[in-house]
């Protein structure tokens, strides 16, 4: 049962490696912005010791983790379903004995894992090459907690991606939603800048949204910025969000399909 989804994931991964030049380029695309951001913070920390509890080493580690995790949890790859819906190719999936949602879930995981694996290697190289003062948690208990949280982020991220792509059932043309997501999501996940640095009011808003749990929360664990009880509370909230998003996804999917078939797509 689960094997066929695994198969989908591996096929997608292999397709990704076929375009080698593009593959290499896409990793350099991760490295260069990271490089600039690291240099920028190094310069900022010349005059200041600490910003909102972040030391220079923590800040740089923060951005390295962002670079590493973004592909894993990114709700950025939403074109597939959108395309299928707009071009009417969705029908072929509706007819197949593989649940559309799981199909895409495995597809996403395949892509993400493939990219992240190489990104990990590249970034490790980066750490050594630039003699980055990488912050490693002193309390080793935080590592498994971080990993658990990342795992949950991936599930949450896929759910969110899925939910957004279903909007294509209602929005027949490009409405710029992609742009809004592309630029707003990095603020809300903390990819742009740690949420703690944002003005209090923005921070409060971001805390009420699920995006925070994609990047900011796991990284906070890694940097030991929150207590164990806060982590427990956070993991609980993460699971809660996953439940909400997937129930919502299932509901929207059913509504969408009804609409799709009613239109005779």
């Amino acid at each position: 049962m689960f094997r066929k989804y695994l198969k989908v994931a591996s096929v997608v991964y292999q397709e990704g490696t076929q375009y080698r030049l593009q593959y290499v380029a896409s990793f350099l695309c991760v490295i260069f912005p990271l490089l600039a951001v690291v240099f920028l913070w190094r310069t900022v920390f010349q005059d200041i010791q600490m910003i909102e509890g972040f030391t220079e080493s923590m800040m740089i580690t923060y951005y390295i983790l962002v670079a590493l995790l973004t592909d894993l949890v990114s709700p950025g790859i939403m074109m597939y379903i959108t395309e299928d819906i707009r071009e009417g190719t969705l029908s072929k999936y509706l007819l197949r004995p593989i649940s559309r949602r799981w199909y895409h879930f495995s597809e996403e995981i395949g892509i993400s894992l493939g990219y992240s694996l190489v990104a990990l290697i590249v970034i490790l190289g980066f750490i050594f090459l630039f003699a980055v003062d990488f912050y490693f948690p002193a309390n080793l208990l935080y590592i498994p907690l971080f990993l658990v949280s990342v795992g949950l982020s991936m599930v949450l991220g896929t759910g969110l991606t899925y939910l957004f792509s279903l909007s294509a059932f209602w929005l027949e043309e490009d409405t710029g939603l992609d742009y809004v997501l592309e630029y707003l999501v990095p603020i809300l996940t903390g990819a742009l800048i740690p949420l703690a640095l944002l003005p209090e009011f923005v921070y409060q808003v971001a805390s009420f949204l699920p995006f925070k749990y994609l990047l900011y929360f796991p990284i906070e664990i890694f940097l030991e910025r929150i207590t164990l009880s806060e982590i427990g509370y956070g993991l609980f909230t993460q699971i809660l969000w996953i439940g909400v998003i997937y129930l919502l996804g299932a509901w929207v999917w059913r509504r969408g399909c009804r609409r799709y078939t009613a239109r005779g797509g």
Partner: protein
Amino acid sequence: MRYLKLWVFFLKNCLLREMEFRGNFVIEIGGNLLRLGITILFFQVIFLHTPTIGGWDIHITLLLVAVNQLINNLYNAFFRANIYQISEYVREGTLDFILVKPIDPQFFTTLRYVSFSALFSLVFPLLIIFYLATAGKITFSLPIFSLFLLLLLCGVAIRYAIGVAVMTLSFWVTEAYALHGLYSEFFSLSGYPAVIFRGGWQFFFTFIIPIIVVANFPVMAVTQVLSPAAVLFAVGLSALLLLITRKFFHFALRNYCSASS
């Protein structure tokens, strides 16, 4: 003269097309505005916690953000779509149509399309510069302003030259668009203050991949005294890169005409 007339025709032509897709026009402009907004937000937040970044205060940084966006928009408005399409011309063989026409092929391939949404988006960075100038955050004298404009043009020229050179590789490599992505990524660094690059990196980003010359030089011309040598370097480099690119493009065409089938 004839080429100017032709270019004006391209302009009209593209305007017509853009009117066909009005929805897209608005979305693109919105996207540009958002991108600019995010960048400003990023630096604003940093300046909430520190008075300067290596000596650059928020106003100089804002000027840099605006200048970088200006150059980006100019590049996107006049060149980006064209340069991106070079690989398509080669792959689909439509380059043949261009080559049989009595027209300079580089002119036609790299100036054919104009993006009006990018052109319109020039308004936003211009507004920022206007605000900085009228609020007295920066001061322009006439000579400084002309120097500023000159260096701005150099920035656009450098981006154009390197962009064309990179995409000309598609005469040999089928995945040149990936290289173009890399190129864009490189030049997205031009929006950071030059002070953050130190030692070897400053050298690297000035002489090897001249991203500092692109947007930082015009800003430095306004905020501090830029040495005549630096100005000369910027102008010389742009001219040299344009020349090399032209040679390279023609070399690629010759190769195309002796290898294609």
